[in-house]
């Protein structure tokens, strides 16, 4: 049962899962961070309110957030194929994961940036800081603890999605759990993969909290 092949398969599963989750999160932030910044900046209490931009962007964010991941996964298969050349395997799964993570991240970033004390922003404005300087040197810096905690939550969510992608040949631990646990009734392998997923979430959370605490200078 616990042959060399099975163990190797699980190790590869862990590797694939980490690969999908980390790359998707990075790509998700490349899209979602500026997106969230624009949302926070153009909102009516933002530093450059613009109702038109905010409404359109917010509407798109909501639409994308409301498509269930499994549907999105199938819906964008042609697009995935166009980008990576095929629609199965862990690299292909990164495309729908990124697309579903980006609006989620955008909302996370938006809410983190809105937590920044308005007085501090006003102080920066009174010194003559430009919009860009306020974003880069005030908002993103002052909100960093909240941003890190948002990234930790995002990692956990994407990990869950990546397991879901296993049902359609997405690769990684979720894929193994479905193939062995569900189709071949090998519950022991499924239990092991589930435990491994739990352990991964715990590790992400631990690292996220550690970095967050380390970076937080708001307490004496």
């Amino acid at each position, binding site marked *: 049962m616990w042959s060399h092949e099975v163990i190797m398969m699980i190790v590869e599963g862990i590797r694939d899962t980490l690969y999908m989750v980390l790359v998707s999160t990075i790509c998700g932030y490349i899209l979602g961070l500026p997106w969230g910044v624009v949302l926070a900046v153009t909102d009516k209490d933002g530093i450059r309110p613009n109702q038109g931009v905010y409404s359109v962007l917010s509407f798109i964010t909501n639409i994308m957030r409301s498509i269930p991941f499994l549907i999105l996964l199938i819906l964008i298969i042609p697009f995935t194929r166009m980008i990576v050349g095929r629609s199965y395997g862990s690299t292909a799964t990164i495309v729908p994961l990124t697309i579903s993570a980006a609006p989620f991240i955008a909302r996370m970033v938006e809410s983190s940036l809105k937590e920044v004390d308005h007085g501090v922003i006003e*102080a*920066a404005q*009174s*010194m*003559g800081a430009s919009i860009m300087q306020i974003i880069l040197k005030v908002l993103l810096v002052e909100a960093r603890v909240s941003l890190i905690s948002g990234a930790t939550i995002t990692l956990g969510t994407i990990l869950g999605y990546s397991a879901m992608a296993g049902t359609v040949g997405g690769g990684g631990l979720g894929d193994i759990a479905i193939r062995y646990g569900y189709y071949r009734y090998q519950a022991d392998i499924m239990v092991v993969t589930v435990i491994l997923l739990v352990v991964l979430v715990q590790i992400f959370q631990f690292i996220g909290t550690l970095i967050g605490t380390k970076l*937080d200078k708001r307490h*004496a």
Partner: protein
Amino acid sequence: MSIIEVRGLSKTFSTKENTVEALRDIDLDIEAGDIYGIIGMSGAGKSTLVRCLNYLETPTQGTVVVEGNDLGKLTDKQLRDLRSSIGMIFQSFNLLMQRTVIDNVCFPLIIHGTGRAEARKKAMTLLETVGLSDKAAAYPAQLSGGQRQRVAIARALACDPKILLCDEATSALDPQTTQSILDLLRTINRDTGITIVIITHQMSVVREICNHVAIVENGSIVEKGLVEDIFTHPKSRAARQLIIEGKDPDEWESAQDAPAKADAHTVPILHEDRKIRIVFSSNSSFEPVIANMILTFHEPVNILKADTKDVNGVARGEMILGLPGDRELQDRMIAHLKERGLAVEEVE
């Protein structure tokens, strides 16, 4: 020409439901080197007024001219550049909590393109000025309120501004810390000639440090001039309440609503007595005037209120006296006080 000229300034805030007229037809001239107080109760519009002076709030009407620049006519970039010559400090300090003290002070320099090494050198000098050079590496959360305001002052001075705006800068501090911050502001004003505009609701702050004052009530300036003049002869209702009754502006409304409560501020005395308010000026404050008067007339007077203080190196203050019953004696006492250079007026 004044360093700050405000003409016909009005500011209206409109929401879907209603419009609020925060400021109405404000004219203000602040001369270079002044310490100018703007006092009023909360909601009077003074915070909006100070934000119009650096265009953090754009006036609905009127002009603000700072060092000859009409702020309304500047481009975004020009306005941002001009702001480097207008420092500002706040009630809640508004420091960057995730940056060290020295990085906070460097911040305005960096955003205006000063190199890092040079900015740090400048910041260290400023921290010495405010007496916090040993806290350079600390984070704001590790400092007390007074220390945080000192950091904010150092930061506001980083770009060598001509003007320093203080928005309720001492309102969150205890009296002793307030005193030390005011001393610091006065020293900086004396040493650099910087113009300071102080928004406050505490008359004590104005008396302590300002040479000019404007009293704001319901979005309008009801009285303005030299602190000395307004203190000696307050004309407006707001000024009289502020100075004679010694009420903080926060209490103005409630005092109107509840006259019974207002009476609690003065000690009740015999009803037939006449009350006078006397104001001490520099020439009389070293003489024990009241004691001498009592010795001269062999009649006691009742001191209902006394508040004397050293202002800008000159002793100044006021008293409210209850005079004994005899009308003729009262007049002689008043004449006696006037002879000694005191401003005397009757109060209710």
